[in-house]
């Protein structure tokens, strides 16, 4: 049998099977001795490495398999790509705003403010590259603290988190003052 024919048969076999096939099995089907086939396979491997081929012949423990060359994965990705759209849901915006203005902040603290579990939201924001871990708090359990990423700051033209509008203190102050006044009034009533 011509080498060319063996090459063609092996290609057809490996193509149709998809999986790795042992040299023994190939030799048996093609009806050729193993050592000759092995040499032919080595030649084939070299041929597949040529520029115009998109597939290559890999050998694993005496078995052979055809597979796509990794340099073309990008194109397969494009072909199979299900365009993902990132959505900033209300939950994410809320969580992001808390992290932005309260950073560095622990997850427990975020949850205390929001009143609900926030793992999913925090993870999503990390995945989106808007939030990142900023080290650990020096307290019991050493909880991780989160803050906004540089991309986030840069996008809004800020050079540090301190440049974020800091009006929330005023609100708190106001609330505190109101409460104190109320308390004062009550005390006055009692007295």
């Amino acid at each position: 049998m011509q080498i060319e024919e063996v090459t063609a048969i092996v290609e057809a076999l490996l193509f149709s099977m998809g999986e790795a096939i042992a040299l023994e099995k190939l030799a048996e089907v093609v009806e050729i001795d193993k050592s000759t086939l092995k040499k032919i396979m080595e030649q084939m491997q070299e041929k597949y490495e040529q520029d115009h081929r998109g597939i290559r012949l890999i050998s694993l423990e005496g078995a052979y398999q055809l597979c796509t060359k990794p340099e073309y994965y990008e194109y397969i990705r494009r072909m199979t790509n299900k365009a993902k759209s990132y959505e900033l849901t209300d939950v994410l915006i809320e969580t992001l705003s808390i992290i932005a203005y309260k950073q560095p902040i622990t997850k427990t603290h975020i949850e205390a403010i929001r009143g609900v579990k926030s793992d999913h939201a925090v993870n999503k924001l990390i995945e989106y590259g808007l939030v990142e871990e900023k080290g650990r708090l020096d307290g019991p359990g050493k909880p991780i603290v989160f803050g906004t990423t540089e991309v986030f700051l840069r996008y809004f033209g800020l050079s540090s988190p301190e440049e974020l509008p800091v009006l929330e203190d005023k609100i708190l102050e106001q609330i505190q003052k109101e409460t104190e006044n109320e308390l004062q009034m009550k005390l006055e009533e009692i007295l």
Partner: protein
Amino acid sequence: MNLELKLEHYEGPLDLLLHLIEKNKVSITDIPIVKITDQYLEYINAISVGKMEIMSEFIEMAATLLAIKAKMLLPKPKIESEEEVDPRQELMEQLLEYKKYKIISERLREYSESAAKNVFKEPSIPVEVLNYVEPVNPEEILAKLDFDKLYQVFQMVMKRKADKIDPIRSQFSEIPREVVSLEDKMQSILALKSRRHLSFLELLSEQSSKPAMVVTFLAILELMKTGEIRVEQSNLFEDIRITFN
């Protein structure tokens, strides 16, 4: 001879007719109608009456054949019209058309036999591609975000929180665990007896925490059981009216 089985072997009356024509070595274009009709009827008659669903089409053809036969046996009118139509014409055309597809079928079968030797491959998308996660572009995401909105949301969240938390207690860094007992809650509901009716939703909204709400709900159930109160709901999802007995 099991004719029923044989009839099923033919795909239909046309198939049977073609078979008879072939067997008699006659031409479709010049069917010896008497002979073929007789043979056709022989087949049909030999068949049990039971199989009506396959029979009806065969019987219909028998009627057609008999009609053609009758026409051909009738004495021809003396003045022959120039364009005399052969009574077999329509049947002949039908048979020719059918025969055409019979021949095509044979050809297609040959095609399919050689095409069966084209072996295709199952998709084998590299795991690296399957596991690939598209890199996120944070700027693209931020483009959908309004900075002012972010701030407004934050103010809203903090306001909501301030409303919820007892402002005096919040001055201490820790919020003490609230202990709500079922007995206390039942008592406090009963203490409202003077109001005659209570709104379930209002009662819940007055509670300061989730545990308090849960215990309130349990207290209502308990009071229903002991017959102290009755509950009514006029429609699904509507408020529940609590009445003291």
